[in-house]
């Protein structure tokens, strides 16, 4: 492995004492084809909660990855406690007291919580007086003590693979505290948490600030910034748009700054007009590869013109449920009906032809063929039919025509129109392409799994409108989402899934988001 170490001339820069604990001056970072950060300068005071707000791809994570030593800036300088620094590795950042909780946790799944926390700075002891070993007992004691001190309860001897997302995040936080980090970076920390867990996390963040820590919060959730942040830097397309005072700026102003235009945050929803039953699921049971029942005896039905939303914490069987209905996962019990016809054992192709559209969670691997061009991807579910295919030969002209029409109608943006390789498109436009394709099938049932995951506010707004439009056009919609906001905004009926079972099914009007959050945690009342 070759590390490119950039050294900057030290001459002439007089920094002296500074009220800022971290300063990044004129930082630019380029990746092949894009400028991730373009001459960004930020300054963070000791003991404040500093938020970084921006859409996906705005460059927030890249900026912080440079502070954490994962990348090195192409241009610009970084100062920590007034001293100019070169951060060539996370180890160098850790020495300066900088810690980071990544969006995708960096944990060893088959290690215990304590082993994960002490990794890299393990307490040592000499076995039999000479054999150097890791003192895991001391580690366990230290971690138990540390977790009590900060109110972050963990069992040091539990394995990471056996604990949930919120516990894993706790481990990441403890990892920073164990290293006595003073500057704590959180990258989208609430993305995978339930409302209760978010509340708890924000409380912890405030407590950490009270304890003298400096906190940098990367997020695109405006409410969280309002709740905890002192100041907020807004980034868009790699550039710094401005730094605002969180207390005196409204969320609407923040949103507009971030997107660069007026955003409609409230979507008006017409009253529902339910028709006949389209999807009926009875006693559905699905086993995973290990033979465990991840979906247990689930039953529900979705009518035409209804959005049935499945709420739940990630990993409670909702993805398997969607896959089973779509025919991607085998069922081990129960029956599925589409518009009165049983489709429990039908092939995926038969389900599509019978009137089912599916927008999968993993849009890049399940929803698209990334190396195909846009025209081909848009015809992925109809290429075998006229006019795309005549007597076994593909008709490129039909692909072009169909592709151009959809690009126009659904405002799919791409470099080279129908010939664009889908891999090169942005996540938002990839999703637009999938949704365009699935809507064009004019199916009776549309299944949306995490349709707005990882997208920015503008794209989210757009997609939610489309989902509502499909419902108003009389289609049955099965929506599976981890975002409670999304479920509350769209659903007509909510089913909460917990450990593979539908714990509660009720009209959305009868539930509050708080109540749904409780059911998501398994509280049945």
């Amino acid at each position, binding site marked *: *492995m*070759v590390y490119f170490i950039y050294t900057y001339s030290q001459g002439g820069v007089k920094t002296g004492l500074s009220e800022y604990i971290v300063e990044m001056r004129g930082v630019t970072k380029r990746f092949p084809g894009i400028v991730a950060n373009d001459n960004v300068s930020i300054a963070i005071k000791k003991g404040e909660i500093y938020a970084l707000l921006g859409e996906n791809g705005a460059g927030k*994570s890249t900026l912080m990855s440079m502070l*954490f030593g*994962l*990348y090195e800036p192409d241009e610009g300088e970084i100062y920590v406690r007034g001293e100019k620094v070169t951060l060539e*590795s*996370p*180890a160098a950042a*850790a020495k300066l007291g900088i810690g*980071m909780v*990544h*969006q*995708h946790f*960096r*944990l*060893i*799944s*088959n*290690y215990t919580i304590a*082993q*994960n926390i002490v*990794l*890299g*700075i*393990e307490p*040592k002891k000499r*076995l039999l007086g000479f*054999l*150097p*070993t*890791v003192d895991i007992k001391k580690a366990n004691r230290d971690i138990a003590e540390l977790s009590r001190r900060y109110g972050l309860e963990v069992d040091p001897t539990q394995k990471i693979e056996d604990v949930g997302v919120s516990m894993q995040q706790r481990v990441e936080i403890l*990892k920073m505290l164990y290293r006595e980090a003073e500057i704590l970076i959180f990258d989208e920390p609430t993305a995978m948490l339930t409302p209760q867990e978010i509340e708890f996390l924000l409380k912890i963040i405030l407590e950490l600030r009270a304890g003298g820590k400096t906190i940098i919060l990367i997020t695109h959730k405006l409410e969280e910034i309002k709740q905890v942040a002192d100041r907020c830097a807004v980034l868009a397309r790699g550039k710094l748009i401005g730094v605002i005072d969180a207390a005196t700026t409204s969320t609407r102003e923040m949103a507009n700054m971030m997107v660069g235009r007026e955003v409609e945050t409230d979507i008006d929803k017409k009253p529902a007009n339910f028709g006949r039953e389209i999807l009926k699921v009875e006693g559905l049971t699905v086993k995973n590869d290990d033979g465990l029942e991840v979906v247990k005896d689930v039953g529900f039905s979705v009518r035409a013109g209804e959005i049935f939303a499945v709420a739940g914490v990630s990993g409670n069987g909702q993805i398997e449920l969607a896959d089973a209905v779509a025919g991607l996962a085998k069922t081990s019990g129960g029956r599925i009906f589409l518009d009165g016809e049983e489709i429990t054992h039908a092939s995926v192709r038969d389900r599509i032809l019978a009137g089912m559209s599916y927008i999968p969670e993993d849009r890049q691997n399940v929803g698209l063929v990334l190396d195909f061009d846009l025209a081909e991807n848009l015809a992925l579910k109809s290429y075998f039919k006229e006019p795309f295919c005549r007597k076994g030969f593909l008709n490129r002209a039909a692909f072009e025509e169909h592709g151009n029409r959809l690009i126009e109608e659904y405002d799919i943006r791409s470099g080279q129109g129908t010939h664009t390789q889908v891999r090169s498109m942005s996540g938002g436009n990839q999703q637009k392409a999938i949704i365009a394709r699935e809507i064009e099938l004019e199916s009776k049932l549309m299944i949306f799994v995490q349709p707005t995951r990882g997208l920015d506010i503008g794209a989210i707004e757009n997609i939610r409108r489309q989902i509502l439009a499909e419902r108003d056009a009389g289609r049955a919609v099965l929506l599976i989402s981890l975002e409670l906001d999304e479920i509350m905004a769209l659903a007509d009926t909510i089913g909460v899934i917990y450990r593979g079972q539908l714990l509660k099914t009720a009209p959305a009007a009868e539930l509050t988001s708080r109540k749904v959050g409780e059911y998501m945690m398994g509280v049945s009342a």
Partner: protein
Amino acid sequence: METFISDGLSFALPLFVIAIGGIYSERSGITNLALEGMLGMGAFVGALAVVLLTNGAFAGEFYLAMLFACLGGALFAVIHAVLCINFRANQVISGVVINILATALAAFLAKLINASVFGQNSNKFQLSTAPTLGTIIPGISGVPVLGKMYVFVPIILVVALIAWFILYKTRFGMHLRACGDNPHAVDAAGGNVARTRFIAVLASGALSGIGGICFAYYIAANFSPSIFMGYGYLSIAALIFGNWRVMPTLAACLLFGFARSGGYAVAKLLALPSTFSNLIMTLPYIVTLLLLVFFSKTNRAPRALGEIYDKGKR
């Protein structure tokens, strides 16, 4: 019965030390199909040292061979480490290519050196037989099994114990296993993924070399290109059945060893012609296939195995 046990152990233990080498490499996240090539080249270097440095009457010959086999294996493993870690090559392809290279290189060099140094037309290096415990400790020469046990059996057990200790009880071992599960975590924790993996691959070469020279001594008492019999692949199978863990892998190796010696015992008992006894030699491989069908489903490879580590990947 005695031959059954001692043959079984003599085959199982070299297989085991090679499998530990494989465990080191794979637990650090580097797929290692090159065990076959490493054991062969290790044995080659060990045997070469013997024929060049001794005149056939040196008492410590076996230990000298072992030392050089260990060094040779490690040296040859550098190729795999550089290709996979520095050049981010596909690890499966690198492994396969190294095996082909080793087969060709060993045959070519053995012939060349025999011709130019000794003036012989041969691709073999003659070795003496491996010493047994009985020859070292005269007091136990009469004890069944133990007396006729090759010294490499206890040596490998000690090596295995040390390897196990390093892998599970030391900081280095903890980092090594962490690299195979989530290298990003190691990086974020201030560890050096590339260096840890490099050392792991070298260790796998060194351990394979030890196993290789033991096979050369035990099976033929010489080095020839027929050392490439697929034992490296068999040890990969053993470590997979052993779920990438040292102790279960020992069990798998013992199973293979006794399947093989049991096969010989049966062939001898039935007094079969040699065509059929060759068939019996396929026994360990048939056992492998059967085990593969029944057990490999529940086994779990290290999560980051074979993944090219890219620091910037999110």
